[in-house]
């Protein structure tokens, strides 16, 4: 595995790489050569299978300035150590070295130099494989930036923001060049974004000044010139100047450097210089608006004053001129009043200003007349204040000239209906549906629990054509077509009447008489997807009956009959949870799938539990089939607890473990249960068993698990036979298109089309072209089926307390369980044979071990946690060999060298239920843009977490522990509080970070392991929950099910007498327990959730 980097140097792209395997084997001091850089040969063999042949690429090298850690002291080392890049560090799981001590050192890396002409293809190929992992290489973080820069260059060509320019080279020769035009405001803002975000690594070329612009300038002009020139050469544009003599015609001279494969301008020096000067003058015109300071010309189009019936075709419009200060465009000095102002004595002080303004107006008019030559007529008058235009002219002005004038820095005000889709001809879909949806199998209407036909329900429909807001008939359209006017007034409203629109509207109405179709067809058509109004904008859909309710989607409160909380529900549903329940009930009844995507912490679980109870209260449990609840292993414990707590009457079967029932026996058990709880893994493994049951419903929790479309898992889940489907997820699905498709393909099969079709129609335009219209269409298409409420929504925020505490009950993995039982057994055996201090010591050390096991096996085993090998003695040392024993690492009790590298195995979150769940939750909250504090008692666990977060989530977490010096603490806190999204996760040790700090940027607090004293935990929570906090703070306490963590949590919760004695006492009280009590306290209790994975 390589990490591939890119740099742009002297007109070509250099690719270089870091080799994961050499970094693992040989993290040692080096020469100026990069110690674990990939060879050019390795690079080639990693890249070519994935992105195609690199013909024409040359082997080269590049001198970079890269961050180094100081050389280890005491080994006589003279050179510091090259640090891995952020991507490699993630793969290695290395822990960040103290930033203060890092230095930049010249480092030579072997590269593959890509010819300028192949650069676009290469970077586009990198763009295409973004998000599709491969086994040979990963791109460094900077690659995404290069891809963004490439996109920007291509977009300039597409948007025709490209200029031909002339450059004079150092040797006095002249060349022509196509380059992007970046001086306009919009482009300049984007350029500023690109310059400001350019990674340091992309600029750190030794011997340069590290500035972004020279590299960006060179890259952009090379790419743009490459695109334009290649197409001009292919299409033989050079032929067009064959008959002109560059020596005589300066245009031909200039073009000689722009049209052909060669860029040199071939004529005498004197005249070449003229070309340079004249071109500069010409291009300078583009920059005028920015360079001239002062007032800008403003045009205002006013409608003619007409009576109601007038169609306005032959009316006269007025365009008036004025001046505005671009900084305060609301204040307009209109030309009329400017020229009418008294001048001379009476005007006094203002006359000079007045004359100045008049002059400015004239200058601006002259500037605008280059774009709009008709303005010259107005300029012939002595005091030009405006112009009269007929309807045709004003149409042309608004449609063609306005955008150009706006770009050139002028202000153009047009009537507000202009450009609105409502002022164009548009098509409108009418869906007729009864109040109650048709039901499957019977005509009774759902009283016996049968469901609607869902997407396959037939609905009546017809199309209407509207002008503005008025529906128009075929006859009317034909009459309008005869008039042939581009702007017409209908019913007092102006309409932009393009002849091509009328044509397509007429054709459309004739070929779409209406009829019936399925709901899925209707919804897709209403959003302009299938069977389309050819070239006619679809303004939307109107519906009656149940379809209308469906379309009002998330507007739950208005159109829905609210469902009350089921009586059997043991708890209170907040108002937004009730409306979520009502929404689920509604869709469920129609036989439609639903995706409940509420923000983390809003209680998706209990809304679903309430749904299960609701249907049973309506119909009676006996008639309702079982629901299959598929969850990741990490949340099973939680589901079980929540079901027991809120709905104890529901019969829950947990399908899990090696001895789980199969075949007929399982079907029997399932049919006797209300809920069957299982994991994604089991569903795949027991596909046939699952398929045999006629499920009432399949529910996916953490539905983002099925985000990769072509997996066995997804196929298995979709193949299960069920009446309805619900997906639960906390990630913002609407913005993650691959996930959106997969989840909706589960909930509403076929609704978004095939994956390929979806990529072509939606994902590509939205992701690549940032196509807002397509994004909006997609949103409206999926709106009926996705309910996502945020903690910040007004309706939710008023329901939420400022602090929400929840417990995450987590199941141990098999490995953890085995270790846990070993430690308990070993201790119980030994305590019987000892007493006094030795016994106490035994108990205490067992306690620590058990807590470590609950955290992560690697924490307990101390495996693979290595200090950086000192390399100066020349002895190679692999990381694994350098593993150091990690004994007790509770903060304050250990100090010592910073470990730099963790072994890959220690970073597998799946080995621990807690880390698995933490990664899932962090991913979700990062997607929502939230920030989190993670508290642990153990520094070593902190290191492990930091490594995992970096590797799994690809963000750089901050880490504060007992060994962090004060100055560093302050910078860490400052960086976190800045809240710019670059450092959203902060890992802290409970002792070092639990007091004193102000970390209100966080709205999630995780207590990864528990401290017996709630006061200490609360104090830590208060880092985020304090004055200055404006959001709800979610506190997540992690507890391993069946372990001592759970036992102690229960005691504290129930405020038992024992608990009052132990709170604040640390672990010492445990040592006084009898062996029997210890067994009771510590041994693992079975939960039915263990084993089998």
């Amino acid at each position: 595995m390589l990490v591939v980097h890119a740099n742009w140097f002297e007109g070509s792209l250099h690719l270089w790489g870091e080799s994961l395997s050499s970094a693992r084997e040989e993290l040692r001091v080096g020469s100026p050569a990069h110690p674990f850089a990939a060879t050019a040969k390795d690079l080639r063999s990693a890249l070519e299978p994935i992105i195609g042949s690199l013909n024409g690429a040359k082997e080269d090298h590049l001198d970079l300035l890269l961050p180094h850690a100081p050389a280890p002291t005491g080994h006589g080392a003279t050179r510091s150590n090259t640090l891995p890049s952020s991507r490699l560090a993630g793969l290695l799981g290395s822990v960040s070295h103290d930033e203060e001590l890092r230095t930049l050192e010249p480092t030579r890396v072997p590269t593959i130099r890509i010819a300028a002409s192949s650069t676009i293809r290469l970077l586009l190929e990198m763009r295409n494989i973004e998000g599709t992992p491969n086994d040979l290489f990963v791109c460094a973080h900077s690659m995404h930036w290069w891809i963004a820069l490439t996109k920007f260059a291509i977009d300039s060509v597409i948007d025709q923001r490209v200029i031909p320019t002339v450059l004079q080279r150092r040797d006095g020769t002249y060349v022509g060049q196509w380059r992007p035009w970046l001086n306009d405001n919009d482009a300049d803002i984007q350029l500023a974004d690109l310059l400001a975000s350019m990674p340091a690594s992309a600029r750190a070329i030794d011997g340069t000044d590290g500035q972004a612009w020279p590299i960006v300038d060179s890259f952009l002009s090379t790419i743009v010139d490459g695109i334009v020139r290649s197409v001009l050469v292919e299409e033989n544009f050079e032929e067009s100047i064959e008959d002109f003599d560059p020596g005589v015609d300066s245009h031909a001279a200039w073009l000689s450097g722009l049209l052909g494969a060669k860029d040199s301008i071939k004529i005498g020096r004197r005249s070449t210089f003229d070309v340079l000067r004249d071109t500069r003058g010409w291009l300078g015109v583009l920059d005028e608006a920015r360079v001239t300071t002062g007032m800008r010309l403003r045009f205002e189009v006013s409608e003619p004053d007409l009576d109601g019936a007038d169609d306005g075709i032959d009316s006269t419009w007025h365009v008036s001129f004025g001046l505005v200060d671009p900084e305060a465009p609301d204040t307009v000095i209109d030309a009329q009043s400017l020229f009418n102002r008294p001048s001379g004595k009476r005007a006094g002080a203002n006359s000079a200003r007045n004359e100045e303004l008049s002059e400015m107006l004239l200058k601006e008019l002259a500037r605008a007349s280059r774009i709009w030559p008709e303005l010259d007529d107005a300029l012939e008058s002595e005091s030009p204040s405006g112009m009269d235009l007929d309807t045709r002219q004003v149409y042309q002005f608004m449609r063609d000239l306005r955008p150009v004038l706006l770009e050139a820095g002028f202000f153009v005000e047009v009537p507000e209906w202009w450009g609105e889709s409502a002022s164009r001809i548009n098509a409108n879909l009418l869906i007729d549906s009864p109040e109650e949806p048709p039901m499957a199998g019977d005509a009774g209407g759902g009283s016996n629990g049968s469901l609607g036909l869902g997407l396959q329900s037939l609905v009546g429909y017809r199309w209407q054509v509207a002008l503005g807001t008025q529906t128009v008939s075929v006859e009317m359209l034909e009459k309008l077509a005869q008039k042939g006017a581009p702007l017409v007034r209908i019913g007092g409203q102006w309409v932009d009447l393009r002849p091509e629109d009328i044509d397509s509207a007429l054709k459309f109405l004739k070929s779409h008489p209406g009829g019936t179709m399925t709901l899925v067809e209707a919804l897709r058509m209403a959003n302009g997807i299938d069977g389309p109004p050819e070239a006619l904008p679809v303004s939307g859909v109107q519906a009656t009956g149940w379809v209308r309710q469906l379309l009002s989607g998330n507007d739950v409160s208005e159109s829905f009959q609210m469902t009350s909380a089921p009586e059997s529900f043991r708890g209170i549903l907040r108002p937004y949870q009730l409306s979520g329940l009502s929404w689920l009930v509604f869709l469920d009844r129609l036989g439609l799938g639903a995706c409940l995507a509420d923000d983390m912490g809003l209680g998706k679980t209990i809304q679903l539990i309430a749904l299960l109870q609701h249907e049973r209260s309506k119909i009676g449990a006996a008639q309702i089939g079982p629901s299959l609840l598929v969850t990741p292993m990490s949340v099973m414990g939680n589901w079980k607890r929540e079901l027991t707590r809120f709905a104890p009457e529901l019969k829950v079967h947990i399908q899990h473990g090696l001895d789980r029932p199969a075949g007929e026996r399982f079907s029997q058990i399932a049919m006797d249960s209300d809920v069957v709880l299982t994991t994604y893994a089991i569903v795949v493994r027991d596909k046939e068993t699952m398929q045999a049951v006629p499920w009432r419903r399949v529910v996916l929790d953490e539905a983002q698990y099925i985000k990769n479309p072509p997996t066995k898992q997804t196929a298995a889940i979709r193949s299960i036979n069920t009446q309805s489907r619900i997906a639960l997820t906390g990630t913002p699905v609407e913005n993650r298109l691959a996930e959106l498709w997969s989840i909706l393909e589960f909930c509403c099969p076929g609704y978004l089309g095939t994956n390929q079709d979806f990529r072509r129609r939606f994902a590509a335009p939205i992701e690549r072209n940032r196509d807002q219209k397509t994004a909006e269409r997609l949103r409206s298409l999926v709106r009926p089926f996705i309910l996502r409420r945020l903690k910040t929504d007004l309706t939710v925020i008023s329901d939420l307390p400022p602090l929400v505490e929840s417990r995450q009950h987590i199941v141990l993995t098999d490995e953890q369980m085995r270790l846990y039982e070993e430690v308990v057994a070993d201790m119980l055996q030994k305590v019987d044979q000892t007493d006094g201090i030795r016994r106490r010591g035994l108990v205490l050390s067992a306690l620590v071990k058990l807590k470590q096991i609950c955290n992560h096996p690697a924490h307990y085993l101390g495996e693979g946690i290595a200090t950086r090998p000192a390399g100066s003695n020349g002895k190679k040392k692999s990381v694994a060999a350098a593993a150091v024993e990690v004994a007790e690492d509770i903060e304050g009790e250990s100090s010592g060298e910073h470990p730099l590298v963790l072994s890959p195995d220690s970073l597998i979150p799946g080995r621990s239920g807690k880390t698995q769940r933490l990664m899932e939750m962090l991913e979700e909250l990062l997607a929502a843009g939230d920030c989190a504090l993670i508290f642990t008692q153990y520094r070593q666990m902190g290191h492990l977490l930091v490594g995992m977060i970096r590797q799994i989530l690809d963000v750089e977490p901050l880490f504060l522990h007992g060994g962090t010096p004060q100055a560093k603490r302050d910078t860490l806190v400052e960086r976190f509080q800045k809240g710019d999204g670059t450092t959203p996760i902060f890992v802290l040790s409970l002792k070092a970070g639990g007091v004193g700090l102000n970390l209100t940027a966080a709205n999630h607090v995780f207590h990864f392991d528990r401290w017996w004293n709630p006061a200490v935990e609360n104090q830590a929570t208060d880092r985020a929950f304090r004055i200055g906090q404006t959001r709800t703070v979610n506190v997540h306490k992690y507890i391993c099910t069946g372990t001592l963590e759970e036992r102690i949590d229960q005691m504290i919760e129930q405020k038992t007498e024992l608990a009052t004695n132990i709170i604040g006492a640390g672990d010492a009280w445990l040592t006084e327990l009898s062996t029997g009590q210890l067994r009771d306290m510590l041994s693992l209790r079975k939960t039915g959730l263990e084993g089998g994975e």
Partner: protein
Amino acid sequence: MTQWQEQNKPRQPENPRRVIGGFKFKRKNGIEDLPWTADPLFRATLTSATSDAVEEGHSYALTGQTVTLLAAPGKIISSVQGRSSRPYQLEIAFATWTPEEWDQIIAALCTEAVFAAKFLVGELPPAVGPLIASLGIRTPLVPMKPGSKSNSDPILKCSCGATQPCKHVVAMMHILAERLEDEPLLLFQLRGMPVARVLERIHEKRTLSTRGENQAHPVPPSASDQTLTTPIENLLHDFWRPGRRLHDLEARAIATHTPHALLRRLGASPLGGRFPLVGLFATIYDTARTRGIALRDSESTIKPNGD
């Protein structure tokens, strides 16, 4: 003085006559934090004026008693309305640079593109002052010795006849300071050459240098904004990742495309050739756009591995 005498003294109103449309000193921070272009002269004026002049001048500035203020090359002509019926006439004469000194300065300003680029957007980089001083030119860019002596810079004159600086000059200096903040290049004009001419001469000079690198297109504004890029040595903690603003860029909507917008803004070519340039460019733009769209929408030709 008897009562009679007092009554017959030419009547002076207690407050100055009100001016309609005069220049009011409207600066948000008042006289605090003036920029380096304006502060030295303003401070020096206040220091050498009497406290009465300072106080009254300040309130004149606030009520807008300055009727006119004209910046001519080398001097300011202004009128300030006081208690008398007519405004007082002020003339503020600045030391100017000789033509030879100007040649030197223009040549020095051309050595770095950033100066020309900044001037074009009306900004005056602080480095210009020291640059001019380093040429050995006696008169500094920023005047700071106001007074009535012949070697003052500037020399203050007011028709009120009071000791300089009088309250009218103080009032006017407020307005001038405000102007210098907004248009720092005005300093060149005060030293004897209209701003437009300075820009023209720099432009000429840069164009005429036939040696070295040169280009026909202007540099975009962000290119000369040094604050955009953090020096790499300050990014050791975050060396490899793109900065936050990449997200901003990606979240920004792309403006709707207007065909040939640039070409229409450019208008006819001034190159004086006979070849129909603009028509050809229109075709080129359309051809290139098609190619660009094809590139943007191109799919991978190589099948990714994995299942």
